[in-house]
């Protein structure tokens, strides 16, 4: 059983890292988690992002967070990527699979996957 003692061990291990983590995080990934996003499948997308960011060792650089309705419900699940000094990237109609790809190619590799982004002509 995952005991509180194990949680204590995690705490002891993470304590130093937490201090390190603050001040970094220059990339922010936001998932729309309002009724529209949740109904369209945002929960597995969010979980895939959290999982892959950790797997790729990007925890210090990338923050994954949740927000309400972004306003383009027909394109949910929507994932936005904010990076200092760059224009916001909006990925639409996301799936857990596409999310993994975004972590690998965009968050890690620095290349925006334009075929998944919102196009002006869609609006």
């Amino acid at each position, binding site marked *: 059983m995952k005991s509180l003692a194990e*949680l204590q061990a995690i705490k002891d291990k993470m304590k130093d890292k*937490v201090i390190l983590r603050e001040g970094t995080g220059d990339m922010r990934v936001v998932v729309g988690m309002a009724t529209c996003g949740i109904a369209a499948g945002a*929960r597995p997308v969010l979980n895939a992002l959290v999982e892959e960011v950790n797997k790729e060792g990007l925890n210090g650089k990338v923050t994954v967070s949740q927000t309400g309705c972004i306003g383009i419900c027909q394109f949910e699940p929507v994932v936005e990527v904010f990076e200092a000094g760059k224009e916001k990237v909006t990925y639409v109609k996301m799936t857990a699979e596409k999310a993994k790809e975004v972590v690998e190619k965009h968050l890690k590799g620095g290349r925006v996957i334009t075929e998944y982004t919102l196009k002006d002509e869609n609006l």
Partner: protein
Amino acid sequence: MKELSLNILDITENSVKAGASLTEITLTETPETLTITIKDDGCGMSEDTVKSVIDPFYTTRTTRKVGMGIPLLKLASEQTGGNFEISSSDSPEDHGTLVRASFNKKHIDFTPLGDIVSTITTLIQGHPDTDFLFTHTFGDAAVSLDTRELRQVLEDVPLDTYEVIKWIEENLKEQYAEAIPSV
């Protein structure tokens, strides 16, 4: 919504948005019925607002922030012959909202609960600074998680730390395997 656990995620987001410091998610199951209760100590709503959130046609224009979430849960419950209730108070001394939906599990239109563990971890990941008390009872068996207890152990390590979220996920899965082998 494909799973009731997604409705629970959606409704609990309202509690967090209402500034709740503690949100209690309680599932009570029997072989025939399921009751979902979501109770928060957030800012609450006025009597008029409570009435309006149940009606999707009224709410779309006037209280857009509330929207379709409540009507969807109400529908999911009532289509199984279950009951739905919402009560709220915005008085400064005692404020908060309670949403309760009951379901007839044997009804053909019953939506399965789905991945409730994922809903709980998603809520904690997204809102590490608010507390959740999750309880799921099935007869004598029970699964529970109280983030206030975890916070005591973790001290200043945030609840949305990856390792902590994984611990919560595994802990809940193990509790389910032990308490409710059939789920």
